[in-house]
């Protein structure tokens, strides 16, 4: 490795100090609206928003592995009565591992919270305090009980690789409020990337600028943000000037080719990004009490807390979509919401990392008035079964994947707060009342952003592709 990389390794994510590139920032502003001719920056949707938007930006907390809804947001008093029994219907359910044990009651106590009286378990004590901000959907349904296809569906609406995820669609539809930062930022878990790695923030067939930009926890925050070598400011400025001059001479010969002009402008934007990214990543600019509120001072919450705080800062600067992953890949020992062996132990470990930071994020957004036009989403690819994953005559400690019924929550702009929508059956096995599919969820999120999910399309191989494929009903009942 050369000197540059050693140098950049010293620039940690959380102690990223402003690089000395100030002088390189070029004067001219270059807002998105000013890219007047559409073909100069191809690949952005036109005619948006379709209707006035309630939400301007999105935070997506993506919980990998499968959060047990019956231990968190879906209170099933009947479960206690069925504890140790087989399925009341007498059916033998089909599950991923096909090991159908006896029913197990919830491992955490549920209480009604806040003024709304929303039921939330003790798994999330901090989040429970923010109950009056949450809109819980308790009747989610997915089409796959296999982690990765289910996660793809959660994020892209399709079970296969290669489709654009929601963050990319939103970036394509709405662009960015700033030209200094990417429109779609991804903050992976410090313990590792989710299974499938970068596939999870793929732009699929959408143009490359809509790919999620992963902020790294080590090395430079963004790939190639700064020169791979230490250069003097003077030197760098001279280089940029030379580039400008060489391109101008070339431009005289070619005429005003849109693409060539746009390329020249893209270097100005790059320079602005070099200033903005280190600044926004500088969490030390926050007060000690804020840092403490997000849990930066405690080991178990430091990772998620830092990312939540960074998220708020990114949104303040105009980033459109920030996606935080809670959990990495599968395998042992567990580093995500993977409760096959022991839900109690696993979920305790995972919730401790996320509970306080997420509650702090909601509180902070509320205090700053940002929750009024920010949408916070917290989803998981599927839930967990009310019966344990064990021998048929046994109450085990782990639960299998459940695609038939599970819970997610949303908060913020345009949503009715403190309500729960839909319901699963008496034991939380299947959604029975107002089932919500990922398509419906995606349609609703886009709707809140001022986007008609049937009109945000991109032609690919014979189809005007949509995030919602050919489906999607807006969940009107949860909207204000």
């Amino acid at each position, binding site marked *: *490795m*050369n000197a*540059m990389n050693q140098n950049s390794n010293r620039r940690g994510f959380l102690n990223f100090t402003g690089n000395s590139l100030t002088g390189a920032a070029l004067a001219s502003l270059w807002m998105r609206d000013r890219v007047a001719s559409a*073909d100069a920056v*191809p*690949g952005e949707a036109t005619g948006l928003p379709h209707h006035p938007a309630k939400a301007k930006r999105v935070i997506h907390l993506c919980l990998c592995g499968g959060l047990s809804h019956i231990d968190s947001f879906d209170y099933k008093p009947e479960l206690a009565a069925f504890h140790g029994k087989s399925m009341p219907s007498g059916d033998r359910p089909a*599950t991923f*591992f*096909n090991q159908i044990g006896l029913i197990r009651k919830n491992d955490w106590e549920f209480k009604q919270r806040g003024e709304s009286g929303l039921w939330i378990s003790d798994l999330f004590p901090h989040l429970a305090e923010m109950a009056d901000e949450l809109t819980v959907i308790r009747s989610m349904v997915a089409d*796959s009980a*296999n*982690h*990765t*296809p289910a996660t793809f569906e959660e994020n892209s609406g399709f079970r*296969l*690789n*290669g*489709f654009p995820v929601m963050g990319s669609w939103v970036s394509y539809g709405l662009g960015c409020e700033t030209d200094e930062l990417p429109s779609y930022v991804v903050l992976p878990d410090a313990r*590792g990337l989710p*299974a*499938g*790695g*970068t596939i999870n923030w793929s732009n699929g067939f959408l*143009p*490359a*600028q809509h790919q999620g930009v992963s902020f790294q926890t080590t090395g430079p925050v*963004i*790939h*190639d*943000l*700064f020169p*791979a*070598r230490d250069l003097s400011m003077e030197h760098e400025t*001279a*280089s940029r000037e*030379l*580039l400008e001059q*060489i*391109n101008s*001479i*070339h431009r005289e010969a*070619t*005429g005003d*080719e849109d*693409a*060539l002009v*746009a*390329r020249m402008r*893209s*270097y100005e934007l*790059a320079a602005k990004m070099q200033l903005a990214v280190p600044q926004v990543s500088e969490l030390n600019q926050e007060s000690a009490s804020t840092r403490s509120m997000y849990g930066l001072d405690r080991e178990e919450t430091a990772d998620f807390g830092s990312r939540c705080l960074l998220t708020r800062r990114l949104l303040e600067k105009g980033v459109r979509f920030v996606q935080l992953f809670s959990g*990495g*890949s*599968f*395998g*042992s020992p567990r*580093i995500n919401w993977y409760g096959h062996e022991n839900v109690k132990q696993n979920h305790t470990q995972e919730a401790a990392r996320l509970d306080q930071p997420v509650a702090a994020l909601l509180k902070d957004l509320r205090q700053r008035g940002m929750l009024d036009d920010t949408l916070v989403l917290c989803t998981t690819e599927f839930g967990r079964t009310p019966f344990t994953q064990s021998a048929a005559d046994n109450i085990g400690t782990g639960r299998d994947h459940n695609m038939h019924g599970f819970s997610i929550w949303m908060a913020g702009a345009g949503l009715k707060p403190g309500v729960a929508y839909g319901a699963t059956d008496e034991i939380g096995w299947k959604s029975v009342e107002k089932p919500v599919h990922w398509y419906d969820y995606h349609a609703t999120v886009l709707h809140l952003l001022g986007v008609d999910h049937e009109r945000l399309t991109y032609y690919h*191989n*014979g*189809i005007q592709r949509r995030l919602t494929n050919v489906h999607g009903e807006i969940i009107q009942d949860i909207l204000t």
Partner: protein
Amino acid sequence: MRSLLYVSALLSILFARNVSADKIKSQHFDRVVAPLLAQRCLSCHSGDEAKGDLNLSTHDSAMKGGESGVVIAPNELSHSLLWEYIESDEMPPKKPLTADEKEILRTWIEGGAVWGTESIDAFRLTTDARAGTDWWSLQQLQKPQLPPVTRTGWTTNPIDAFVETKLIEMGLAPSPAADRRTLIRRLSFDLLGLPPTPSEVDAFLADTSTDAYERLVDRLLNSPHYGERWARHWLDIVRFGESNGFEYDQPRDNAWHYRNWVITALNQDMPYDEFVRLQLAGDLIDSDNYNAAAATGFLVAGPHNTTLPANDVMRMSMAQDELEDLVGIVSQTFLGLTTNCARCHDHKFDPISQREYYQFAATLTGVTHGQRKMQIALSDDQQQRLTAIDARVGEIALALDSIEQPIRDAILAERKRGNEAVQVPPVAFAAWEFDQNFDDSIGSLQGISNGDARIEDGCLVLSGTDAWVATAPLAIDLREKTIEAWVQLNDLDQRGGGVISVQTLDGATFDAIVFGEREPQKWMAGSNGFVRTMPFNGNEESEATQRVVHVAIVYLEDGTIVGYRDGKRYGEPYRPRELQTYHANQTQIVFGLRHSPAAANKMLSGRIQRAQLYDRALSDEEVASSAGVVDLNHVSQTQIIARFSPDQRSRFEQLSADADALRSEKESLANLQTVELYTCVSQAPGITRLLKRGDVQSPAETIIPAGLSAVVGVNPDFSLAADAGDADRRLRLAEWITHRDNPLFARVIVNRLWQYHFGSGLVTTASDFGFNGGTPSHPELLEWLAMTLRENGYRLKSMHRLMVTSAAYRQVSTRNVQSAKLDTDNRWLWRKSPLRLEAEEVRDAILVASRQLNSTVGGVGYRDVRHFEFKGSNFYESIDESASDSLRRTLYRFAPRGGHNPFLDTFDCPDPSTTTPRRATTITPMQALALMNNDLVFQMADKFATRVQREVGETGTTVQQINAVYAHAYGRTANKSELDLGCRFVEKNGLASYCRVIFNSNEFLYVP
């Protein structure tokens, strides 16, 4: 009487008149009414899932009505609900009928609503909502008339006649021809993906012959780099990636053979029909041929999920998802049809029914992902060495035998005298006789039956669907071990059933005797995630249905695994990794099941007569003895060695060592000869059923594999049975697709070639020639090109030659303000569109300028990622790629789906998970950051500078250096102001920094 006759005649006349009136009405219906219904109503009101349950496509269903009751009351307009909806413009919902159209339906109902041909073919006519079988791209190729030449001096070949006609029609004029510098740069990037060298530029400029351009084209088409450049286009379309994608994303270390094959085939100018036939069915056309097997890498180029649920429905549904993906890629790539859109319902836009989707899909259900070992030919030298080794090994064998034979004779003589006891079978740790029960007759590993497992005639009988036996836990730790069983199978086609398995109690870790899982009809040592599984390469089982066979697997301390059948070695032992330890009280034995949890695809169908477990590794003799096939005349080597004198022993050891060395040399030669490739493995396709709404839990009628009837001119009937084998299916599919009368086949490929040469296709949607795709800008030109390709035997190089020698291609790319106003996108080709380099070309051009490109053609790729396994999933992390052996053309980059190269991504390098028939060209700040700051750019700028300094020598001036930089980077010399600018910068900041800026310049990245 007379009157009677009269009346009768009158009646008959009246009757005849009535008949003919109805006939006229019915003809009128077919001619006028049916097309209207088809165009405006049937997209919702037909088929099994007609809206409102109203199906207007047949007489009976139309008259029956729908949810709201009868809708057509003949002669009674006011009672016809259909009319009510139409008149009020409630139907059709989005675009009401015109007054004329309403009139047609009104008079039809009032005239008695007489129907014509029973069933209206909703696919026959194109409407404003969908394509019918009369859609342009589905029609037979028609050779068009060449337009008359109107502007003498501009046109060079028939392409120009078509282009010029269109330009004139549009009020545009062609641009003048580009200069030679521009042309060689354009051609070089276009045909090779590489810039021309300064000496190539000079040579072309100096060539005064009239055919200099044509000869340049030929030289480039004959360059091996041509295949590399155009293989990249092809790999985009087929979404070639080198890992599985999904959760595990395992690397495919041997997938590169396909890329290699594409490069070679293109360089050889393989006819396009053969190129396609081999990709669809090479393994069936020439089953033992390495190249043919490599070609079918096409069928498995996409993602593949190896995380399999235990649940059957979930597994089937995943398989259907992947099948849809395969149908999509086959149909889009070669036909430009999105057949995959008809999985759940009839195609919404093209005349492809849901049934036809399943017919088409049924031709591909024999395709599975896998690895094949193939033999490739050795060189003459290698062949000679092999012969010599064999001869020497034979001599050694004779020499060894001369030492051993006297001892062997002595032992046999003693045996005859009864001095040495006949070897008795080894004693097992546990044994199950299955005579009356499932008990262990030696120890305490009592079995418990599950499902319908039962004892019958002294055998454990296993149904193959829900029968297995599991024992109590072992009380000891188990390391070395031997498992054996006497087993008979119910059928030889079963896949993946376990005979005897040592497993942890949850089944997560196991070692088992398994039949036919990875390779049909072969025994294998099954293990969790195949971590200790490799093929034994034993023979295919052919007898186990007729009699009981003995199968054993021995697991040695060093990890070696040895298979036996009937007491003899089964294939070759192998050592995959370390021996697995099984812990006391956490381990059990299961019979009839590969491992827990139970699932039908892990069950054995057959009977087990006996089974035994040993807590040690048996020797060859012991296994043979246990199998009951001890040969009294066999003396083992161990017995012989024990009796050697010291001299004999040293001589024996010397000879054995020599033989070992020779064998290992032979083995490495054989390894050279054997290659393993990731490719299509043919399997029994099974029976396909139509799935209602695409749901695996709603199977309907059985489907016969066939083509699509929408493609006019080629018979879609493959004359196959529903249970036809994979070979018949795929061969027929390949014949059908590549048939000379298939009009889409030639149209789609000439359009792709045009797109890559000109930046945009005549049809802009290269993989979709259906209703949603574009229509051709120059329809006659497209026809002419397709016919020409077919006539010249599908040779792509002659098509390239035709396109790039046209005057249309040779135009300047300069912007003409007037023309740009009329045609911004240059659809009518008033100039040559300038093109930005593709991601791979950017990196390659940088490497060429800095003289660092390793231009080796073909072979294994380079890796710019660190691959690591983390908790069972595979990850690919970017690493420094500056090591010189990796500086190959970017085409050779190992391309895992989960590990893109961020630098290339910014230049729109496509995601290998999805087909990319046409790349986007974006301009972003991330791209600027990458090109300014990436380490490779700095390193190559250094090398570029060093190269230039060396070329101009120590005495060279800065002006000379800058001119050299311009020659390498732009193929020209610098002008005065460029020199001034350069000199000032270089003198202050150095030549390397200057080179970095050049790499970032527009002129470097755009081909005029």
